[in-house]
């Protein structure tokens, strides 16, 4: 294979890397200039304006690079396999590369603002590198490459979480996320090495062939469980969710949005591929009347626990970001149900759900970010009276919260219906009914806390002394992004076929 051909096949990833380097360069040159002239304590106002201009340019570059990368994904051939599965191009992978790019795109838009952080260029470059990590994760069917993707993604996200140097919570978020994340990486690596040791290969297809012929040894079981644990950290499934609340609450809002959306989507794509392709012969069964050992009961237990813990703990929260974090744990649990059900339908239901969830959550974080800039916090009390202060944001937040709660005609409702019907369908004799029951109970509980958010927005009156900073004129870009995401959630709820049929068609 010639290098030219290789370059053609990795052109989307290459495009994003080049953009990252460009953005980094722009940011650095302007920073140098600032550092040289800005020695005196009083900054001339022109300097601030220039900074804003540079930040704007960086955002524009990053956004443009992502658009070009998305176009490059469209230009890829339909199917290709490189290096024994290290890079695989299938319609599914291409679709999810585009979804990841779209999520990164909205993160970039949310991060763009007039009073930009001091290191806009570096921040955006890291976002782009994380995006490369996502794309590698999505586009690989080989354990080593998956691990590299995970690490690239993880390291970028740790920095993103800790990026706000002026906020001690951000540092805490970054450190916690880093410690938990690296532990989980260790688990994953250990699991992968055991699997490699037992099967002699790291390609997922080859592993499944190997597993089908040999009986399951205890060491292999340990390897599988270790890998699953590593991914359970990534998707914040209980009891491995403890980093999530602090990371979601402390990290800068765009970072939190990205951690909650892009990272989650990619992790689910990869986890789905690993269990459904690689470990297919040892699926087992989580049916309540016919329990068979395998990864499926393990995932079912994780799912049930996540749903219960996530929803119950979310009830007690008064901070919206923490609440979103615990609800993320619960939603991770719902999504796992699709994988437990297994098969083509289960996988596509899980993918549909996690995509919908990611879109919703980016939007919700967008609203939280805007409210935070206006009022300086993100507790319930900061949302009081949002309906009168900004009807648009209130309406969007209502759409996001109700979609998460699974109220029709929003996308989350269809996602849940799809997931649960697939779960019941997959198991003989309604064997997974117990899991569906737990999930439904969970979504019943969740309605309460989502309504509490909406109660703060619509029912409570804002305190009269609330400092009404410019919510109306500024932040056009963010508001536009949030509105577009809300519209997407509504449209995907009314016409879910747009996405569901596409995912179903591409899942092998």
């Amino acid at each position, binding site marked *: 294979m010639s290098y030219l051909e290789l370059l053609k096949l990795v052109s989307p990833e290459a495009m994003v890397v080049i953009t990252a380097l460009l953005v980094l360069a722009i940011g650095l040159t302007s920073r140098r200039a600032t550092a040289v002239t800005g020695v005196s304590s009083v900054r001339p106002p022109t300097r601030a304006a220039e900074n804003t201009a540079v930040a704007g340019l960086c955002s524009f570059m990053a956004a443009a690079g992502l658009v070009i990368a998305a176009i490059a994904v469209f230009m890829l051939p339909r199917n290709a396999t490189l290096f024994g599965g290290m890079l695989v191009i299938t319609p599914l992978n291409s679709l999810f590369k585009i979804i990841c790019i779209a999520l990164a795109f909205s993160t970039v838009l949310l991060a763009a603002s007039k009073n930009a952080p001091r290191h806009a260029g570096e921040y955006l470059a890291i976002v782009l590198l994380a995006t490369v990590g996502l794309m590698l994760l999505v586009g690989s069917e080989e354990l080593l490459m998956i691990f590299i993707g995970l690490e690239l993604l993880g390291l970028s996200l740790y920095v993103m979480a800790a990026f706000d140097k002026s906020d001690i919570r951000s540092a805490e978020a970054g450190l916690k996320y880093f410690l938990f994340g690296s532990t989980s990486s260790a688990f994953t690596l250990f699991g992968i090495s055991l699997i490699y040791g037992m099967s002699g290969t790291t390609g997922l297809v080859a592993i499944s062939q190997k597993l089908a012929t040999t009986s399951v040894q205890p060491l292999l079981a340990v390897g599988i469980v270790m890998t699953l644990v590593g991914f359970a950290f990534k998707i914040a499934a209980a009891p491995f969710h403890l980093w999530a609340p602090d990371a979601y609450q402390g990290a800068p809002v765009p970072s939190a949005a990205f951690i909650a959306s892009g990272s989650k989507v990619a992790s689910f794509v990869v986890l789905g591929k690993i269990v459904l392709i690689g470990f297919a012969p040892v699926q087992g069964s989580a049916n309540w009347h016919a329990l068979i050992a395998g990864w499926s009961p393990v995932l079912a237990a994780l799912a049930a626990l996540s749903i219960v813990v996530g929803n119950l703990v979310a009830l007690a929260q008064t901070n919206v970001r923490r609440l979103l974090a615990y609800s993320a744990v619960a939603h991770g649990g719902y999504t796992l149900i699709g994988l437990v059900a297994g098969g083509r339908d289960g996988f596509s239901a899980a993918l549909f759900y996690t995509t919908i969830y990611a879109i919703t959550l980016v939007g919700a974080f967008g609203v939280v970010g805007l409210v935070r800039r206006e009022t300086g916090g993100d507790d319930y009390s900061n949302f009081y009276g949002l*309906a009168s202060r900004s009807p648009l944001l209130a309406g969007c937040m209502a759409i996001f919260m*109700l979609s998460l709660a699974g*109220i*029709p*005609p929003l996308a989350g*409702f*269809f996602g849940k*219906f*799809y997931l*649960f*019907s697939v779960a*019941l*369908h997959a198991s003989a004799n*309604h064997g997974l*009914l117990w899991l*569906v*029951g737990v999930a*439904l*109970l969970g*979504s*019943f509980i969740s*309605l*309460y806390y989502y*309504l509490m958010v*909406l*109660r703060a927005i*619509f*029912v409570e009156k804002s305190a009269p002394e609330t400092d009404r900073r410019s919510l109306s004129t500024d932040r056009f870009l963010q508001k536009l992004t949030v509105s577009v995401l809300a519209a997407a959630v509504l449209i995907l709820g009314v016409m*879910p*076929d747009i996405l*569901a*049929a596409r995912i*179903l068609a591409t899942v092998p």
Partner: protein
Amino acid sequence: MIAWTIYITVAGAVLSLLVPRVVARWMALLTTIAGLALTLVMFVRTPIENLAHFTTIVRVPWVPALGMNYHLAIDGVSLTMVLVTGISAVSTVLFSWDVEDRQNEFFFWLLLVVGGCYGVFLSADLFLFFVFYELVIVPKYFLIAIFGSTNKEYGAMKLTLYSFFGGMFVFVGILVAYVTAGSLDLGQLSEFQFPPHLQTWAFPVLFLGFAVLAGIWPLHTWAPTGHVAAPTAGSMLLAGIVMKLGSYAGLRVAMNLFPQGFQMWSKWIVVLAVIGIIYAAAVALRQGDLKFVIGYSSVSHMGFVLLGLAAATSLSVSGAVLQMFSHGVIAALLFAVAGRMIYRRTHTRELDALAGMNLSRILPFAAFAFVIASAASMGIPGFSGFAAEITILIGAWKTYPVAVWITGAGMVLVAGFTLRALKQSFFADKPEGVRAQEGRVALDPDWNEQDSITVAEKCGACLLMFATLAVGIYPKLLLDRIMPAVETMRFLK
């Protein structure tokens, strides 16, 4: 054509969010009148024999991969329910003519509830049905929590969570039906033979889920608190239409899909229904708040609906549908008088306080409307309540004579609490000289601003009174359309 009731209402909801404040109520009125007009045209023009079967109106593939269709259909039962929705909707808007605060939002949520109800009554696809069914839940929360009165946030949350709790069971039942039969089409599902052991547990799950919304005892407690907390329009919609969603769905979905399960459990539903009738009537007898009296009376009347359904003869089920219509109109009228006509002017609903106000002289029109509503509610011949309840009892006599005996005795209680409320609120013989002004001076500084009953209120009340009288005098008008449709349903065979 009748499908346009849904589109018009939803479009009206969105529009009323966008138009200027003062126009919002006109927008809402126009929308609901258009919906009612469409229904009436349909009602008059459709030949009766076409209403015997659930006839498709629209059928468009929606999510082909999962077998979901956008499928609307109509028969006599649906048409009756759509009609009561239209009537209640118009009068509801008329009775919320003076909402001062956040009108746009108010009418948005209101019309969303109405649109969702139209949708439930017309859908012939299980998924579509569930979409509309759940769509109704959340707007109610906002209607009550933002615009309500007494203890509104508690009432709103309780009502929403109860509805959603029921919805959870419905979800399970629908999933099981879908997965087992592999179809979501109500027509196909009602011909599919579900295995008996599945029916024995799937029926109670599904029916219970629906019955929460219908206010079945002992899961009825959301209804009185919710009704009391709601703004007048909210109580009218809740008692008038939303509670019917539950009983309609129980009939259309649960009983039609799982007839064997229904046969097995019907006697327990009868027991719960009879307890509900008696218990709620007894509780209503002791309430001090007029709205609580009406709230419990709703539970009691819905007990009749459940009894009629569970008795499972064509007469009793038709009576139940008629009772859904009749109670929709009567409850709306009762809440309108209590919540709007009385409360807005006296700022109290306490029967003891009202007793001193001599309201029948100050508000003669309100007194007149309330007498009509009470008479209809008690089941005086000539009003729709009588026609419906007598049909239910005659129908149920064949299958559950004991229940009919007990219920017949219980109707005395119904008459008792209705007369008590009527007497205390309008015709108390407190000593002369206790004047209304003294009764509420501390509570209501702007008494004089809203003295007489407004035109909008009169129109709304007249519409409802006309409906209950028309059906009471000539019940064949509806029964001719309901009976054939009920007779084709599977569980009767």
